[in-house]
């Protein structure tokens, strides 16, 4: 499964698109894990001649296929946080009209989107496509700690240890969904964990 239909939800929940080639002198593609497939789907020699690809594999192996696209620049980073300084540098050098393509999980797309908008890239120049895991990046509303890759509801906060209900309320500034204590009104009564979209 690489394409997932998210169920209809509340308005703060982000809606992801499908990458398409836009005209422009410069293109930055950040592909995480299965997100590489979205890059491969739209790559053309003309586009690649002006494209910087940043690939974060996370247990996938698309490096050879991406390298074979002969993009203007190609970088493989072991994790998002390891790649972050480079992403910031590339964005700070960005020319007017840079097109940004983000693909992969919600957590990485959300964080990379923040980096891009922070340097003034208009949201109309940023495209997204969700691929791969439907895990969420969650913020505990109580201790403020972020837990990455949450696949179940409720989940245990990696920081304060409370059992948290996975809400659909989403903050673009934090690139995270909100987690709220599930047993606040009945301590210890924690429902059985299930997959978020189960």
């Amino acid at each position, binding site marked *: 499964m690489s394409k997932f239909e998210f169920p209809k939800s509340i*308005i*703060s*929940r982000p809606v992801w698109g499908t990458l398409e080639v836009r005209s422009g002198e410069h293109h930055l593609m950040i592909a995480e894990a299965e997100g590489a497939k979205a890059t491969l789907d739209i790559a053309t020699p003309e586009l690649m001649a002006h494209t910087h690809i940043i690939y974060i594999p996370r247990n996938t192996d698309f490096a050879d296929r991406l390298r074979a696209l002969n993009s203007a620049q190609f970088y493989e980073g072991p994790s998002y946080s390891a790649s972050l300084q480079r992403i910031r540098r590339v964005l700070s050098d960005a020319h007017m009209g840079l097109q940004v393509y983000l693909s992969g999980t919600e957590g990485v797309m959300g964080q990379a989107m923040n980096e891009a908008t922070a340097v003034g890239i208009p949201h109309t120049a940023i495209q997204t496509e969700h691929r791969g895991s439907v895990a969420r990046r969650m*913020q505990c*509303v*109580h201790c*403020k700690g972020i837990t990455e890759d949450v696949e179940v509801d409720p989940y245990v906060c990696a920081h304060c240890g409370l059992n948290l209900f996975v809400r659909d309320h989403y*903050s673009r500034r934090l690139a995270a969904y909100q987690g*709220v204590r599930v047993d*606040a009104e009945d301590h210890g009564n924690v429902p059985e964990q299930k997959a978020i979209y189960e």
Partner: protein
Amino acid sequence: MTIQFNDETFRDKYTFRNSEWAIKRFPFPFHEDSYMYAVNMEQHRGGPEGSVYEKRFDVDEHYVSEMKDRAIVLDQDPLRCQSLPHMTLAGWDILELIMVCKSEDYPDLFELHRNGNQWRWINRPMGIDHSFTFMDETTLPYGPMEYITRQAQGDYAVLDQRDDMLWMDAGMVTTQADWSLDFDIGMNFFEWHAPVPLAHEMGIFQRALKFLLNIQQGAPARRLNWTMTVNPLLDTSPENYHKWGIQKTTLTPENIGQKQHLRVELQTFFRLPRSNAMLFPIRCYLCSFEDLMTVPKWGRRLHRVIRDLPDELATYKGFIDNRPMMLDYLTQFDDGLPTSPGIWPDLETEPPLSK
């Protein structure tokens, strides 16, 4: 009149009390015997003498104690007051608006003396006499929004206006009905209301936004909103929900009259002159069921409203589990007689309880 300020707490022993004066002027939020969402905006141009509508920023007997409670919340969690970098000018607008309104509306409590940019602010109830330079942050102990909202009851959301949209880009939020400024800051009007059920589908937020975008300087607007809170707890924040949520289970048929509070928000909307931002004060008033029942009209009406409220709303407002116990209590105060239209207590004209 001179206000006698209560010495009371909104936590721990909950010594908060409403005087008879405060009960009679309580902003009862139901103008008829049923409730559904509505945009329900009106001009904020005063109201009956002594009512919470009379002044632009109402000051009541809880003022000093509420400000002490705010200081406790901010000591424990400074993230309750935040301002994105482009909102500082709006902060000065807010400081000016509140100082001017309070000194004009309550000259016995507040004084503002302006000589060019050299300002002197006197806040008698809080014992403050402070000279500072307007628009110079280094002359204040906090940023301008934080400085003045540590001296003004109610929460304050500050909304930037751009692209025909309102963005919550600053705020002072310590008496909130379970929403997080830290999480919602930077969101637009539709996003921060996203968790509210039914109202989006009804077009409520689209119409409200249209109205708010057109609010002009000097023509503020207002509306009432409400929810339920067990114990007179001002800080019903999501941040602390893991601590206070359990209090909802402490209601019994014996204590519900004292413990269960109707929580009403007087929401007002002021256009700010320099920044063109919108100041959105959300002033919280609490009243116990027992005190509300001293007004026969409100007793009759509250029973009918709570009984007939759609389940989605009772769930969203967080009292679906306690609703049966509330109704057992409230039904004692509903004799089936008709009620007069409007929110006012009408003590002189409405019949006493005949039951």
